[in-house]
Structures are given as C-alpha cells and as structure tokens.
C-alpha cells in the first residue's frame, strides 16, 4: 500500500550559478537608483504623454509605431497608481509627487536586465562554450548605451528583449527539432517564438526586421527538411511508397505547425494589441481630427455628442455640414460667406466676382448647406422624407445666404487649371447659373444606395461640366481670410480623397416652426452609428493613419545619420542637472563598439576566405565547425545587418538609439569570432595562451571604459568641467559643460 514510500522523494535541481549571478548583476546595474533623476529625461517627455492619455482613457494616434510598447509603459503607470495628471512639456522638468517614477521605469529596466541572461543562453544554444556565453553576457552587461536606454521610460530595451527572446526560443525550438519534434517543449518554444516576434513588432516596427530574419531562417531550415533523403531511401519500392506518404504527411504537419506559430499567431496577437488599445481608449481627445467622422463618432464625447440621434439618411431638405475626407492639411468643412471673389486677382487674372466658397477648418454656422431637389421649391423635408440616392441630381443651398453652390468655366483663384466654385449671384449678365450636382457615393454597395450621414463618402459631379468638387489644399490670400481653396476639378483622374466629402452634422430641415412637431413625429429610425463601426474597420483606419501620418519636424539637435553610428561619432544628451554638472548621455562603451566592428570585419573576411577555398574543395576547418560558424553568423551578423542596413533607405529623422538592436547582435558576434579564432586558428599552445591573455586584458579595458563613463550613464556623481572635458574622447561628442 505504501509502496510509493519505498522510493525517496527526490528533487534534483540544476542551477547554472553563472546565469543566476549574471542576472543578479544585470538587475543591480539596471535598477540601481532608478528614481534618479526625478525629472523628465529625453523621450520620456514623448512617451509620458501617451501614458497619461492611457490613464485618462483618451484616444490618441502615435505615428511612431504600434501601441503595444506604449501599453506596457502604461501598465507600469497603472501598477504604480498613476492618475495621468502631469504636464509632459519639457525635458528636465521635475516630476510632481503623483508620478510613480519607479514603477514607470521598472518595466524597461527589467527588460534591459533580462537581455543579459538571454544573450548567455543564445550563445549556448548556438553550441558555443559556456565561456563564450559568459563573455557575451558580460559585454551586454557592461554596455553603457544599453544601460542608459533601459533605465528610463523608453521602448528600445523592451524591443531588444523581445528580439532576443524570439531568437533564443527559435534556437531552442530548432535544437529540439532533431530528436523530439512535436513534444511539449517543442511546441512551447515554437509558440514562444511567434509570440515574442509579434511583441517585438508591436513595440516598434523595427521588430519587423528580426521577424523577417527568423522567418527566412525557418524557411531555410524547412527547405533542408524537404530535401532530407534519409526516410525515402530506407527499403524496397513497396515500403518506400508507404514511407514516402508517411513522410509527406509529417512534412505537412511540420509546415502547418510553423505557419500557425510564426504567421497566424503573430498576426492575431498584433490585432489583439489594437483591440486592447481601442477598448482602453474610448474617450475623444486631441487626435480626433485626423480620423474620419465615423471613427470620431465612435468615441465618447467629441463628435459623438453632436451626432447622437441625428437622422441617418440624407433626404431632400436635409441640413448638412460637409467634411472633406482627406483631412489634410487640416480637417475642414465646405463653407461660404457673403464676401465675393475679388474682380481682379493680384496677378491680373479676372474672377466671376461671385460669392466665395471655401473650406473652413472650424465649426461655423456658415458651414451648413441644404440639399434641395432641383424640381421643387421647398427647403424642408417632405413627409415622408425622400432619401437622396446614388446618382441623384441635387442643388446645394447655402443655409445662411440661400445661394446655390455653382461652378463654371472660370479659372479658380489659386489653381488656374481647375474651375472656380462659387455661390451663384445673378448679376444679370450672360453667365447663367450652373448649379446642378450629381451625387456619387464612392463606397456604395449597390447603385441604389441611399446617401447616409457620416458613413457615405460622396463625390459631387457638376452636371454641366462634369467637374468634381475638390479641396485643392492651397490656402487663399487675405481676401479669402486664409481659408482653404475649393475648386472644380475637370480632369478627375481616379479616386483621391480630396474629392470626397461626407456629411458630418445632419438634421432634417424644419424651417416652418409650426411643422416642428410634425417632423419630429415622423423622424426616421435613429441609430447609434458607433455600434456600426466594426473593430476591423477601426483597426484598418487606425493602422493606415499610423503608417501614413508624417511628422514634419525633420531636424533635431541630436539627430544623426546611419553612418555615424558604427563609429559612434554621435551621442545624445538625455538630461542635465539644473545646477550641477551631472548629466546623462546615450554613449556606448567605446571598447565594445570598436571590438564589435572588428569582429564583424573579421567574420566577413574569414567567411569569404573559407567560401572561396571551399569552392576549390579546400577545407580549412571541419564540417561541423563550419556549420557552427555559418549558423552563428547567420543569426548574429544577419541580425546586425537587418537591423542596421534598412536605415540607409529611410528618410525619417534618425537617432543613435535606433542602432541599439543592431549593436546588440554585433556584440554577440564578438565571442563567436573569438572562440573560433582560439579553436581553429591558434594551433599552437603558445598562441592559445597569448589569445587568452589578450582577451583578459581586453575585458579589463572594457570594464575600465564602463567605469569611466558610468557617471554619464547613471547621471551621478556630478563631474567638474575638467573631468567632463577629459571624457570628451571624440571631438564630435556633445558633452555639456557649464561655463560658470
């Protein structure tokens, strides 16, 4: 009965003390004095405002990347009980008491610290010695730039963490592949790869580069699997066919598993980031304007307050405001006012001298237009309302001045190739009114669609000249009060958002007071438009805005070009103490960066040499060493290349911190190259011992540089001007020295 007691209960635990010690050291180096300085440091001013908006649940759009990273930072704020009340306006501003600085900075710091054990494990999984792995981890540990970047509320350390995690889990998965496919841990690592990849992409789009690298690696490994001839050549043709079909099935399973974990799950996770983002942020806020009316109406407050309960279908007699769909340079509404176009413009061209029609960026009573049936005189909605459908001809009457929207063959004030759009004034000259417009619903489902408030995107085609009502984007001079020009585009090439309008505010006309009640009785089915917009529609719009929105500021004091990064010719001053000389800089460990460059160069040259020699059937190193060399290089040098080279093609403002993911991979390459040198190129004992001596000396120099620059990394102790001057090892570094 008690047989199970015959055996002792044994728990064997294997603890890699190296790894534990490294992790502890990393935690100390990243978490020590995390609250210092208690002031806004560099881009915290940027990310902080998003954290505040998350706390207040106010919607925002950040064009720098997807929302997952912001959400993680906000999670820190949430755990620390941050209420979002802080004005993020200036770098160096003191934090007020309600800002939980420690918990806001904790997550990036933890992510930065865990990069160290991850680096160790990656090298082990690449089948390098624990000694090499230790070296890699130490180099990451002592890298000043990584420490600086992870001690503040910034995203790069989180990004690097997920990138390394993805690489490590793929390697673990690949190593399990050979003997125990489809077991529990195999699945675990495979799925973790996908999850980490999507997290990396979700933090910053830069993560995409590593994701693509891993996808390519997985594709390559699978290709080798297809060519694996072992199974198919086992026995006679009879059982061969059987084995072959078995093999095909297993191949298919492998393929499906990879597709699921590396493509479908990341896509799903990426969507879910946005889902959470949109679920959290339900209030309208400062970024509303760049979204479409439908999107704005789905947010609490803002436009939704106005549009709630307004009739859905536009009918003859409807009073509407028309918003241009483009939203660039600013959102604006079709507008008119009593002023007329000047008889002669500054450049001598003439105009029709009729009433101006513009696009006005503010809500105004002059933005109201009435949809009128050309065949009838009344300006109120009939009973029952007659909805306007795609293809109907309408007149648009300006509400305040009751003049008709008109266009004719007169050159527009600023875009002479297009027609002038005006509100028609009958001067009794030979220029008849041409005020018929055909309504074309761009996003219609059928040709009999009804024109709907907010949802329908409409083009107005002039019946006489087939010109299309368009926002030209130019702003009028003084006489037009700098409002935006609206023109009739004769050569309408295809679809462009500047020619598309949607109804934003809408009410049924009831100008005769006595009929007010009657109209209300017959008001149409009201509907809440916000429920109509599905998550996918919101996601597509938000994603599109994130990708297409461009910040205009293209210059920054500390911006740099991608070429400066390799040699670290540039730095970024993150923070300066208001009175003393204490300051924080993003500056790498010079010794590490130089040796990383050397390692990359050596790797490249040696690989080329080996390749050329192998092509002539001369094998310098054993085959398994070669495989090791290639796979390690594929990950480390490949990771460096994919995270660095694309920046040469980018036109946005670049900073040194964009290079950090690349440099992390480059640092991993150093022990790879060193171990290869020691194992295969230093053949004699003497050379080997010399190499180890060199490595020790070099490590101490790395440590020395780390210590020297740690005041600039941690911001304390404060240094005197001469000491600071001594730290200016390169002329191009911008270290701040107070003059008095």
């Amino acid at each position, binding site marked *: 009965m008690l047989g199970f007691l015959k055996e002792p209960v044994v728990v064997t635990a294997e603890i890699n003390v190296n790894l534990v010690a490294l992790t502890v050291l990393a935690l100390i180096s990243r978490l020590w004095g995390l609250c210092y300085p208690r002031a806004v440091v560099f881009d915290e001013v940027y990310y902080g405002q998003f954290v505040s908006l998350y706390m207040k649940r106010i919607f925002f759009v950040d064009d720098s990347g997807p929302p997952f990273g912001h959400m993680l930072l906000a999670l820190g704020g949430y755990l620390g009980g941050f209420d979002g009340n802080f004005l993020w306006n200036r770098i160096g501003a003191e934090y007020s008491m309600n800002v939980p600085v420690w918990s806001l900075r904790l997550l990036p710091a933890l992510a930065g610290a865990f990069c160290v054990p991850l680096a160790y494990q990656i090298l082990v999984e690449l089948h390098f010695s624990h000694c090499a792995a230790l070296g890699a981890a130490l180099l990451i540990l002592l890298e000043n730039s990584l420490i600086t970047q992870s001690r503040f509320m910034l995203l790069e350390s989180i990004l690097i963490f997920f990138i390394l995690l993805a690489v490590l889990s793929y390697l673990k998965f690949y190593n399990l592949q050979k003997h125990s496919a489809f077991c529990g841990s195999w699945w675990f690592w495979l799925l973790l790869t996908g999850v980490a990849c999507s997290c990396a992409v979700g933090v910053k789009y830069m993560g995409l580069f590593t994701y693509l690298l891993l996808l390519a690696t997985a594709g390559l490994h699978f290709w080798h699997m297809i060519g694996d001839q072992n199974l198919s050549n086992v026995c006679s043709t009879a059982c061969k066919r059987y084995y072959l079909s078995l093999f095909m099935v297993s191949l298919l399973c492998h393929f499906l598993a990879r597709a699921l974990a590396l493509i479908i799950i990341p896509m799903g996770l990426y969507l879910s980031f946005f889902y959470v983002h949109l679920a959290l942020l339900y209030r309208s806020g400062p970024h509303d304007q760049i979204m479409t009316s439908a999107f704005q109406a789905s947010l609490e407050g803002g436009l939704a307050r106005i549009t709630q309960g307004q009739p859905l279908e536009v009918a003859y007699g409807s009073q509407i405001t028309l918003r241009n769909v483009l939203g660039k340079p600013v959102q604006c509404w079709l507008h008119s006012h009593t002023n007329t176009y000047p008889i002669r413009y500054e450049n001598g061209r003439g105009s029709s001298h009729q009433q101006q029609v513009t696009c006005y960026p503010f809500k105004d009573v002059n933005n109201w237009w009435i949809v009128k049936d050309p065949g009838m005189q009344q300006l109120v909605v009939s009973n029952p309302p007659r909805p306007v459908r795609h293809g109907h001809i309408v007149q648009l009457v300006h509400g305040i001045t009751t003049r008709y929207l008109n266009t004719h063959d007169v050159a527009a004030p600023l875009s002479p190739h297009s027609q002038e759009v005006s509100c028609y004034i009958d001067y009794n000259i030979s220029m008849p009114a041409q005020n018929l417009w055909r309504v074309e619903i761009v996003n219609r489902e059928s040709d009999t669609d009804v024109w709907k408030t907010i949802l329908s995107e409409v083009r107005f085609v002039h019946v006489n000249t087939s010109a299309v009502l368009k926002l030209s984007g130019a702003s009028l001079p003084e006489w037009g009060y700098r409002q935006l020009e609206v023109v009739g585009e004769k050569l309408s090439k295809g679809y462009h958002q500047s020619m598309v309008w949607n109804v934003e505010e809408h009410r049924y006309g009831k100008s005769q007071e006595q009929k007010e009640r009657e109209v209300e009785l017959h008001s149409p089915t009201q509907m809440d438009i916000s429920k109509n917009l599905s998550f996918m529609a919101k996601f597509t719009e938000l994603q599109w805005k994130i990708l297409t929105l461009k910040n205009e500021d293209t210059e920054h004091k500390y911006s740099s070009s991608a070429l400066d990064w390799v040699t670290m010719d540039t730095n970024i001053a993150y923070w300066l103490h208001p009175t003393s000389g204490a300051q924080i800089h993003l500056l790498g460990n010079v010794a590490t960066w130089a040796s990383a460059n050397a390692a990359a160069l050596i790797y490249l040259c040696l690989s080329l040499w080996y390749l050329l020699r192998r092509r002539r059937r001369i094998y310098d190193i054993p085959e398994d060493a070669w495989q090791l060399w290639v796979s390690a290089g594929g990950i480390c040098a490949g990771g460096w290349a994919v995270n660095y080279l694309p920046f040469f093609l980018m*036109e946005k403002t670049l900073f040194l911190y964009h290079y950090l993911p690349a440099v992390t991979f480059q640092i991993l390459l150093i022990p790879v190259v060193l171990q290869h040198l020691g194992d295969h190129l230093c053949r004699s004992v003497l050379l080997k011992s010399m190499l180890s001596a060199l490595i020790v000396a070099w490590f101490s120099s790395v440590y020395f540089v780390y210590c020297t620059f740690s005041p600039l990394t941690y911001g304390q102790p404060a240094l005197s001007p001469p000491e600071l001057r001594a730290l200016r090892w390169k002329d191009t570094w911008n270290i701040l020295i107070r003059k008095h």
Partner: protein
Amino acid sequence: MMLIGLAGYLSGYDGTFPFQKPGDRYEQHNYIGMRGFCAFLGSCLVPFAYLTVLELSKSLPAALLTAFILIFDTGCITLSQYILLDPILMFFLMGAVLSMVKCNSRADRPFSASWWFWLSLTGVSLAGAMGVKFVGLFVVLLVGLNTIYDLWDLLGNLSLSLVTFGKHLLARVLCLIVLPLALYTAVFAVHFAVLNRSGPGDGFFSSAFQSQLIGNNLHNVSIPEHLAYGSVVTMKNLRMAGGYLHSHWHLYPEGVGARQQQVTAYLHKDLNNLWIIKKHDSDTADLSDPSSPVEFVRHGDIIRLEHKETSRNLHSHQHEAPLTRKHFQVTGYGINGTGDSNDFWRIEVVGRKTGKLIKVLRSRVRLTHVATGCILGSSGKTLPKWGWEQVEVTCTPYLKETPNSLWNFEDHINPKLPNISLDVLKPSFAEILLESHMVMIRGNSGLKPKDNEVTSKPWHWPINYQGLRFSGVNETDYRVYLLGNPVIWWLNLITIGLYLLITVCTAVALKRGVQLTSELKELSRVVLHAGGQITLGWLLHYLPFFMMGRVLYFHHYFPAMLFSSMLTGITWDALLRFCAVFLSPSTTARKVHGGGFLALVLLILYSFYLFHPLSYGMIGPMASNPSSPMAGLRWMDSWEF
C-alpha cells in the same frame, strides 16, 4: 507634354544628346526622322526578345509567343512611336540582355571570337542603357549578378586552373566594367564639349563648374583673390543647386516673424545678390576713401554684410524662420548701414586657423551670428508667393557641418585690389562628372509629388490600372492614350503567379530527388534557370520603384514589362509541354501543345484588334460616353480614353 518634359529633364543633361538633334530642327520639319529612329529602335525590341527567349528556352513556340505579345501590345507601340527616351533605353536594355544570354550559351567555347563579341557587346549596351536614363542601372545590376553567378560556377569547376579563372575574371572586368565606364565617360566628355555654353541652368551648378562654361561671367574671369573690407561680393550656398544670398525691397508678411526685409537664396544671377563687406565697428565713409589702405578680411573676424541695393544689414534674431520653425529668421535690417548688434557675423573658413586671409571662390566659409551663435544657412525649402518662390534662408542653431550652412564668395569687386586670373580653379573632368551627377540625382529626387496630386503608384502598373494621356483631351482632338493591351498585361500578371507555382513544384520535386526523364529535366532547367533569370530582371526593374519618393509615371513599368512578356512566353510553353508530357500519347500531346499555343496567339490578335485605336489615335466622343465606339472597351473605370 509636361510629363515628357519632366521625365526628360534628366536626359536633357544625359547621354542622349547624340540622338537629340538641335531643338529648332525638331520643331520644324525633321521630326519624322527622329520619330522614325525611335520607332526603329522600338521595333528592334521584338527580334531581340525573340532571340533572347529562343536562346534561353531553345523552344520556337515560346519565342514566337513572346514576339507576338510585344508586337501586339498597344503600350509598346505607342511608346515607341514618339520621340521619347524609353524606346532608346529599352533598345539598349534588351541588347544587353540578349548579348548576355548569347554569351552565356557560348560558355563552352570561352575566349572564342563570338564569345568575345557578345561579351563586349554586353558592355557597350550597358553603357548605352546607363547613358540614357538612370533606370539603366537596374540592367547593370542584372548583368552584374549574372556575371557573379557565372564566375562562382567557374570557380567551382576544379578542372579549370586558377590561372584560367583569372583570365575569365579579367575578361569580364575588362568588358563589363572598364569598357562601359570608358564609353560612359566618353559620352559625358562629348556632352561637356558640345554643351560648353552658359545656359539658364547655370545657377544650379557650383562656381567651379560655371567657370568652365563659355559665356558665363566666371569663364576666364580675373578678380581679386583675397577678400577685403569694402569689397562687393556675391555669396553662393554650397549645397548642390544652392542659390545666391539675396535680398530685395519686400518685407516678410505679417505673422511671419518680424516684419523686416526678406533675405532669401536665389538661383539666378541678379543685382540684388550683391553685398558689401564692412567692419562691424566702423562706418562706411573711410572705406570708400580710395586713399585708405586695403584691409583684408581674416578668418575669425567679426563683420557686417550690407545689401548693396537696399543698404540694409544682414540680420538675425530669435524669431522663428518662416518655414523651418526651429531655425531663426534672417532679415535685412537698419537704414543706410546703421543697425544694431544683431547684424554682426563672425566669418570662418572651414579647416583654417585664425588670422588667415579668405580666398574668393576657393574658401568655404561659415557665417556665425555673434549674438545668438547660430549659423547662416539655406534650408532648401521654397518660400510661398510672398517670397517670390525663392529659397528660404535661415540661421540654424544646430551646429552641424553641412553644405547647407557653408558658402563661398563668387563675384568679387574691389577696385583697390589687383585682379588675378583664376584659371587655377579649373576643376578636373572627374569633378565635373561627379558634380553633374549630383545635380541630376538631386533634380531627380526633387520631383516630389505635391500633397493633393493624384499620382501613379507602382502597384497600379502591372494591373494596367491607369494609362497616360499622350495627346488630345477633348472630344474633337486626335487622341493617343498610353495603355497596355489589357488582355496581354493581365495574361502577364497571371503568368507571374503561374510561374511561381510551377517553380515551387519543380524545385520541391528536384529537392526530393524525384527521378526525371531527360525531357523533363531539360524542361525544369528551362523553368528554373532561364525563367529565374528573367524573373530576376523583372524584379530588378520593378521593385525599386516602390522605394522611390519621386513622381512616378506609368511608362516606368515598360522595361519590367519586357521581362514579364518574356516570362510569359517561357512559362506558357513550359506549361503546355508539361501537360503534353503527362498526356503521354504523342498525337494528343502535340494537339494539346499546338492548340494551346494557337488559342493564346488568337487571343492576343483579337485583343489587339479591339484596342488598336489606343495607340494609332482615336477621334470622337470620350469612352465614358456610351455612344463612343470605345465605350464597350472601358473595362476599368480608371481608364480615360
């Protein structure tokens, strides 16, 4: 015609001028010859493509199919009928591909006469392609990759000694690098020799470049060498196509910084570009006195720059600049040279020590504003109407060393100093070559689309989404519309997908080690090797456009379309053959192959019959009008013929 002007902007400087007879003759009556020339080159494409496919696939039907596609594509016809650069470019491009393929097929007889012939012909075509348009660089890339692959193959061939391999390498370097480069530079040398007169584009080029142009005021000029106080000078910004420091009587409009006189950069030569150099602390009187000794300006001096026409000082202050909001505004300030301490600038020469003299033309000068520490620079942005669309000048607080913030003195007038000849300035041919390329690249990438402009997107092209109106807008005009034959283009599009499918199947089968008959082996070689080469060409000529920020046009796709058509020929032929192999009885096989081929050809012919008015011109109502004969053919709403 504006579109062609834009696309041809580059080529105006480019190597095409041997084909561009003087403009006036072309205007009058001799354009038939030019058109004939272009059309001839355009029709050469068909035999070239035919021969290339024949060489690659060794299959007559494939080659015939390709030829049919190219003959009956309305887009190709239209494009080669007019005086455009595209037929010339495509001629050289196809020439390069054909000779490359020919050369590859003679790999078994290296160093034979025909091998040499085709190899050097490849080089010549490359030079031609590069000289016509920068798109020619893609075919250079294609040939380069092919050569690397070829050499790699040779290196792995252990029966070849390293010496032989060295010979191969040298031959290729000679024919594919040295020869084209020599031809290319020769073309440029001729270009500079022919076009040695000053023209309207001078302002785009640096002072040194201008000194080479006859008729330019810098040609054979003799001016005082060192800058002195009281000199009248013009200052040119050193960024490529940077302008002269300029000011005029107009003020900045209200709401744009302080309401003081505008200072801009202006690309053309003008009296308003003249400035007088003055000491910061002394007034004008003693400098104009002819008897006073000449005092030179030295590196590190603090000076004042007075605008000659308006007598205002170059001035800056902490108001934001009109366009670049983070920079400071630069204005003209003061009356008759009396201003304030914000008019003081420190003049520094790049890479010199304090006290050195400043040389006209050769010194690269930086002007630092003394009060705020910012640097005078040109942002390169164009001011709106109030600034006469000249270029913005700002004072940048970011102390970066860029050409934007460097200037040189170009004209220099000082009666008290002796003039010396500045022939020393003469730039070498290499420098001229480099600079003209930089200006061209800048001009090229400067063709940015405006915000509200509807532009053609690369993904439009293969689906033939939108054409290009060549001539005629109204109903009564004789209209020509550049649009590919939609049947052919969609066939090409489908074929790319089909090709990928076939390739994957074949590659997996080969990887699995499936035993193939010799016929199938040959077929899969054609699919993988020949098809791969062509697909690579297509990718190289298409994908880069996605990364370009400039304005793109439909006709940019035509080089890629040539490759796509060749791929169609190869793929359909291979597909029909595969089908034929699996339907083993040879009579049905032949029927399937022949029938499929015939069906494709008939399809192409019929579609050409339908769409031929596009390229040969049409009169009558627009196609959007249902009464037009073309109304039924308007298959996509975006077509506008």
